[in-house]
């Protein structure tokens, strides 16, 4: 006898024979955010799992329709809040495509964008690793990974002004060049990464308890992953080597040497290994950028849509006027629609932007990687133990800012 919920808040836990309907969340220490999973369990085995989302629905897409093109990136950054820079990157690349200036972004700006996005990827995976460990009781990993994340957030703050949502990537390039001293701080992070990563792997990778809890849990085959629209590390752990950075390179990714780690087992342990390897590959890209960082401007020369350097505003009337215009009423983007994907830490994060020629976006539709990654929970949870629910949610790595927007 199966019970479909007809109201969101389950007031009663129902008992019938050996079956129980249990509402996990939306306030729960291990659901990685505001997720409610209404599970039917028979003893300890899950027979049905229905995730309920929407508890963080923020109306970001509608807010963005009422903000200027330059302002919309501030609210868009708050979608996938674990790696805000990938949201901003995808949106800004899409706007630049509509403006027709994708080819004119200076190389230094492209390199710094990739640098910060890869740092953001490592920071996001640090949160995943820490919270994934802490869900299973492995608390030490949390402390180690969050310390690494602190150093990366320090870099964010140094370059962009804020730890989590710096709004440093702008349409046309960056908001000002990297401050002096940034590269030294980056070197410190690069040096600390390898020993720290070794410590974190030592904590969990061969830990028999961790392996017991994650191996053969939440298995997804390659066909199922494609049918459910899974992208990112979850798809790669199932055996399909699809990475947007390789398939549809953007912002100079074709110039860097990096691998795309894949596995075939498709279980939670495979996803764990893939994400750890991805952190290593991200650091590889960061090292290459550090070695080959070029000089030059960081914004497009055309100041009709990218603010002129602050130093010129006091000297040139035109620069002053352009700056004023951009800040007070932004610029017009030619009409059209575009879909721009990037490889976020959770998979293919894409933006479908529609412009009607105005100074505000007409529609900002997100292709939220986490929504599809989370939806498959309905399928993989059936037949697993209730104790595995936490492992599965952690291995899918959803971020509810992106799922609910």
């Amino acid at each position, binding site marked *: 006898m199966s019970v479909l919920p007809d109201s969101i808040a389950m007031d009663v836990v129902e008992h019938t024979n050996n079956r129980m309907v249990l509402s996990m969340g939306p306030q729960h220490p291990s659901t990685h*955010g505001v997720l409610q999973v209404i599970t039917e369990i028979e003893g300890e085995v899950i027979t049905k799992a229905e995730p309920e989302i929407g508890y963080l*629905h923020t109306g970001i897409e*509608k807010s963005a329709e009422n903000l200027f093109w330059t302002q919309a990136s501030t609210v868009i950054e708050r979608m996938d809040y674990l790696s805000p820079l990938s949201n901003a990157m995808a949106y800004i690349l899409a706007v630049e495509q509509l403006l027709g200036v994708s080819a004119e972004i200076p190389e230094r700006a492209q390199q710094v964008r990739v640098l910060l996005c890869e740092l953001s990827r490592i920071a996001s995976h640090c949160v995943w690793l820490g919270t994934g460990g802490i869900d299973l009781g492995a608390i030490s990993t949390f402390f180690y990974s969050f310390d690494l994340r602190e150093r990366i957030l320090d870099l964010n703050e140094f370059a962009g002004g804020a*730890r*989590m949502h710096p709004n440093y990537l702008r349409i046309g390039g960056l908001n000002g060049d990297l401050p002096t001293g940034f590269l030294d701080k980056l070197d410190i992070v690069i040096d600390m990464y390898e020993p720290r990563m070794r410590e974190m792997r030592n904590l969990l990778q061969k830990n028999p308890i961790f392996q017991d809890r994650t191996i053969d849990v939440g298995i997804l085959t390659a066909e199922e992953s494609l049918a459910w629209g899974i992208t990112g590390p979850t798809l790669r752990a199932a055996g399909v080597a699809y990475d947007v950075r390789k398939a549809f390179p953007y912002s100079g990714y074709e110039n860097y040497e990096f691998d795309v780690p894949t596995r075939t087992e498709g279980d939670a342990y495979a996803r764990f290994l893939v994400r750890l390897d991805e952190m290593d590959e991200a650091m590889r890209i960061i090292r290459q950028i550090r070695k080959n960082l070029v000089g030059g401007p960081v914004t497009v020369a055309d100041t009709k849509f990218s603010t002129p350097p602050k130093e010129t505003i006091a000297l040139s009337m035109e620069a002053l006027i352009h700056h004023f215009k951009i800040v007070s009423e932004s610029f017009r983007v030619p009409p059209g629609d575009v879909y721009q994907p990037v490889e976020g830490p959770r998979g293919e994060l894409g933006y479908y932007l529609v412009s009607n020629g105005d100074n505000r976006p007409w529609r900002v539709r997100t292709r939220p990687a986490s929504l599809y990654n989370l939806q498959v929970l309905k399928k993989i949870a059936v037949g697993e133990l209730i104790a595995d629910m936490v492992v599965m949610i952690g291995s899918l790595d959803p971020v509810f800012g992106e799922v609910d927007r």
Partner: protein
Amino acid sequence: MEIIPGQQFLLGKVDDVARWAQASSVWPLTMGLACCAIEMMTATAPEYDIARLGSEVFRASPRQADLMIVSGRVARKMAPIIKRLYDQMADPKWVISMGACASSGGVFDNYAIVQGVDTIIPVDVYVPGCPPTPDGLLYAVNLIQQQIRQGGRGGILARA
């Protein structure tokens, strides 16, 4: 509290001792909603370490928590749940509204976000920021501790 000179005991009021105990062990509820929740988690991490202020554990059950840190934007769908959790917490309880979204709706002045969690539950300390740095949250916990020590809403004789 006084130390009686020459003797081996302290003299004090029950109220003072109780307040000192409450202030030194404020246990928050895990009420992480959005980006601010990540900064709240960072406040438990080694660099900021909220445990040294007494918040050694974050309790998942509202019955066992003293402090609700509303960290993140409160969506309309989540509002009744926050109210229910607040009601389920036992007295005395305190609320920190962490971040701009919890304090006033933040950047999101739209149909989906409750414009300030203080429209549904009473708040003791507001922390500005988007998100506030973990230092800000630690200062807010300090302010809660001061409020507890000085009595008022948080004293042992307080009603809800």
